[in-house]
């Protein structure tokens, strides 16, 4: 595999975490414009831990996930009882606050005679753990997809369990779910924390893949993209968001056929696709039909 393909594949994996994070909240009936904030929290905290304190990447990853979950709880606690656009705008405001705080965040230490660390709008250079520890790009790709597979497996097991049914019921009709004994607010908080941790994990990996991050990476565009990925791919299965990311980054970034008009072509395709399939390519009905066909009893 050449470097370009490796890069594209790794990026697909990285942004899949963010798309899954948006997907999880969509299932619970909430549209978040702010998952990029937790991606950013993961990227910054993971980067600080490995580059400034020499913490090994796996530990830093766990810490970043914890921080991402905490940040999501912090945002979710006062906002999750809001509905629809109110919640979307609250998360957007929170994410922009986070991005602007990253712009103010200066925390540098001398590492090997060089100032390293977040430097406000100048960004955060020198997150070199994977280079220093001789992790080859192909190995990193495996790491990303291994973790992604774990996350997917966990999500798919949850979706097929009672918990998944509760999740979808909370998303479909929170009032009805509550009347059946589900503590909707606590349940949503748990979902938000998991989504925050997922996004943060993606962020840690993103920071170490790029070795350089800046506040602009985590702007509203990233957040809306992740929502779009989840919806284009489909809300029927956790594989949907992956399909969305693959379609966008994979087809678009790697195909130079359309030249300068690729966003025009792709944007139009997405709009038309959503007319035909408003809940994405792999929506609940299609997934149900596939599952029924492949597990047909004799």
């Amino acid at each position, binding site marked *: 595999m050449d470097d370009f393909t490796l890069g594209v594949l790794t990026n697909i994996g990285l942004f899949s975490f963010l798309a899954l994070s948006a997907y999880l909240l969509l299932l619970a009936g909430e549209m978040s414009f702010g998952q990029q904030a937790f991606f950013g929290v993961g990227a910054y905290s993971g980067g600080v831990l490995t580059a400034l304190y020499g913490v090994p990447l796996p530990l830093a990853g766990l810490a970043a996930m914890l921080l991402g979950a905490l940040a999501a709880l912090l945002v979710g606690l006062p906002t999750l009882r809001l509905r629809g656009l*109110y919640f979307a705008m609250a998360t957007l*405001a929170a994410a922009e606050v986070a991005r602007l705080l990253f712009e103010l965040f200066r925390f540098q230490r001398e590492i090997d005679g060089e100032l390293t660390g977040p430097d406000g709008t100048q960004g955060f250079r020198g997150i070199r753990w994977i280079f220093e520890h001789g992790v080859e790009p192909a190995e990193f790709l495996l790491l990303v997809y291994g973790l992604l597979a774990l996350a997917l497996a966990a999500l798919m097991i949850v979706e097929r369990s009672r918990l998944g049914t509760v999740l979808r019921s909370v998303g479909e009709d929170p009032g009805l779910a509550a009347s059946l004994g589900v503590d909707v607010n606590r349940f949503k908080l748990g979902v938000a924390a998991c989504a925050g941790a997922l996004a943060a994990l993606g962020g840690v990996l993103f920071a170490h893949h790029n070795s350089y991050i800046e506040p602009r990476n985590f702007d509203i565009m990233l957040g809306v993209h992740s929502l779009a990925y989840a919806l284009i791919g489909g809300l029927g299965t956790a594989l949907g968001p992956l399909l969305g990311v693959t379609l966008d980054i994979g087809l678009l970034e790697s195909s130079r056929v359309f030249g300068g*008009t690729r966003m025009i072509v792709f944007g139009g395709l997405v709009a038309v696709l959503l007319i035909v399939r408003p*809940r994405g390519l792999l929506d609940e009905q299609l997934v149900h039909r596939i599952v029924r066909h492949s597990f047909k009893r004799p």
Partner: protein
Amino acid sequence: MLLDLLQNTIDGIASGASYALLAVGFTLIFGVLRRVNLSFGPGIMFGCYAATWMHLNFQSGLIVLALVAVAGAVLAGAYVERLCFAPHRSGSAIAAMVASFALWMQFEELVTLVLPRHVYAFPTLHEGAPLEFAGLTLRPDTLAVLGAAVVLCALLHRLLYRSRFGLAVRATIENPVAAGLSGIDTGQVFVRVFALASAIGGIAGFLIVATHGQLTPMLGMWSTLKGLLAMMLGGLGSLPGAVLGGLALGLIEAHSQWFLGPQLRDLTAYLLLFALLAANPAWMTRWTTSRSAS
């Protein structure tokens, strides 16, 4: 000190006037459709780019440029309405929103294909020196923006509260089903309101680029964010609220820039919005209590 406060207030109201227009456009669309049009700002940007193109190729006068900006924004709005909102009228709000985001990407690429430079100069409304009055400075063009906004709001008020069309619009905002049952063609209301909102957006966009004297592809995102922010601050779904929200956003920005510096300006506005939403005051969320705002 007092003078600075006054000056900031004036500047805040001046920029707030254009935010108010953006918020009014957003609110009209949200009010009747219950959908967020993320392409509202990019559509305005499209109109402004069309005007810039006219300016570069034909050196048209300001009036022609304003008309082109409005026509471009309405055209873009019609395209967005057909592709993103007409098909999802009764269906998914999220699908409509994501579709409008997809078209945003289209607008952004289209304008940079035709006019690829990062910044384009735009003719300003008034070249003259700022007016000085008792130590306060007033730019003539911001006065023009303020005047235009007041006139536009007055006209809109007349249209909405003194005409049959306005009655139909308000009925549709109040309850689309009941409006349909009493014989209002809500589909037609949707289309006309979309055009009206886009035209207001086009005027707002023209006034904004003509006071800034320049146009960048960032205008799309900027207008969408400012419009959304002002609409939410004014308590989603109310037109007087949208005007107040716009003015409030202008004032917050002007004062926080003065007291806390430019870096904290946007932070203050977003923090305030977050705090407001978290506090969930009744005037802000009366829409969610009467019906789902999603």
